[in-house]
């Protein structure tokens, strides 16, 4: 009976690799005494907040002050940063995608989740305080509470322009959260809304789940940044404009050139562009420019609303 083989000779399916990656990260975090919570993905299914779907990455939330340290720890186990083209975001940098040459799944390490406007450390502390134990790959893993996982998934669905799949997931999330919304859960949700400063961003959803107002917890600038990011057509252009605006004078020109004319090396980091020839690179530049010009007026108008951030 020689059926025991290693991953080098049998491709590891993504459906298997992702829960195993969650389990691995949980174990590494415990070994190094770093506070880490598994979020999203298959945990949503286990919590009855999503129907079954294969996740291609393991999303984890790490205590913000140890984000860099934990990525270094994971690197010592072979998990290295994915080389992606630099694209500034209108929301603060929040995650790093790690890949391993022998694993088909990524690990997305988050220090906070976009949509939370509360202080990252305070938000994490609350999520940690209210954590629970889930099970993935038949071993226990630490995860955010059901309510917190639901909120994070809602923010994820809402943070970009919605697709039909997002709409379906949104409906599942709301239905799942409503199902278990007893007074204790409602209190937890209200506390998370306060500490996380998500009242304005999730006003409609919080009202629907029974949370009372007020809902005006964002500045006009913060709200504008969220809205620009939500409109994916504007998000890239808005991100560059925002980065140029926030940069020091000497960096502004360099950023502008990088936005308008990225190097060939940068362009080749885009999905499917690694082997692009000269004409492929030209086509990509023209498409980028056209998209930038098309979205420039609306992105500029939205950006104008961001003052004093």
């Amino acid at each position, binding site marked *: *009976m020689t*059926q*025991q*083989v*290693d*991953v*080098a000779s*049998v491709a*590891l*399916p993504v*459906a*298997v*690799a992702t*829960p*195993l990656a969650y*389990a*691995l990260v949980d*174990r*590494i975090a415990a*070994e190094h005494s770093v506070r880490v919570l598994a979020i999203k993905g298959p945990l949503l299914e286990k919590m009855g907040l999503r129907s079954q779907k294969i996740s291609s990455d393991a999303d984890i939330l790490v205590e913000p002050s140890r984000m860099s340290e934990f990525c270094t720890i994971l690197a010592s*186990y*072979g998990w290295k940063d994915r080389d992606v083209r630099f694209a500034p975001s209108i929301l603060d940098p929040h995650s790093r995608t790690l890949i391993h040459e*022998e694993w088909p799944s990524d690990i997305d390490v988050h220090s906070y989740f976009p949509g939370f406007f509360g202080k990252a450390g305070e938000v994490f502390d609350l999520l940690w305080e209210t954590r629970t134990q889930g099970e*993935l*790959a*038949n*071993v226990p893993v630490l995860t955010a509470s059901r309510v917190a996982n639901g909120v994070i998934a809602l923010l994820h669905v809402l943070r970009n322009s919605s697709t039909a799949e997002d709409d379906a997931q949104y409906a599942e999330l709301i239905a799942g959260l409503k199902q278990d919304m007893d007074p204790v859960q409602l209190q937890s949700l209200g506390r998370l809304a306060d500490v996380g400063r998500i009242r304005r961003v999730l006003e409609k959803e919080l009202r629907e789940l029974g949370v009372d107002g007020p809902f005006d917890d964002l500045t006009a600038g913060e709200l504008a940044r969220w809205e620009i990011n939500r409109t994916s057509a504007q998000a890239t252009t808005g991100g560059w404009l925002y980065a140029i605006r926030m940069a020091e004078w000497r960096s502004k020109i360099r950023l502008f050139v990088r936005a308008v004319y990225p190097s060939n090396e940068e362009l080749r980091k885009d999905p499917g562009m690694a082997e692009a020839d000269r004409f492929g690179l030209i086509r990509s530049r023209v498409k980028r420019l056209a998209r930038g010009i098309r979205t420039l007026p609306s992105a500029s108008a939205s950006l104008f609303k961001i003052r004093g951030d």
Partner: protein
Amino acid sequence: MDKWYRPSGIAFELCEEAVYVLDLRDLQGDLRPRALQGPAAAIWLTLGTVDSPCPELDLVKSVAEEYGMELHEIEGPALDFLRDLESAGLAERMHA
């Protein structure tokens, strides 16, 4: 009769006919998932837990039934495989 069980601290996932096993007890060891296929996967899944270990004979019978084989056909290879798993640290036994 000996009883067998899966040690705790080993993550595993079932996918189609295979079980993918990742030993998380030694982070300095080999952290590549290993695939157990066919009867090997069936044996792994039948092992039981430390609280509810599986008697050796039940284990062999269960796999023989699942694969429509005679007990004598599978008993030798199955017991050899159990010992392989034991030396790899992926199965433990309670001696009778």
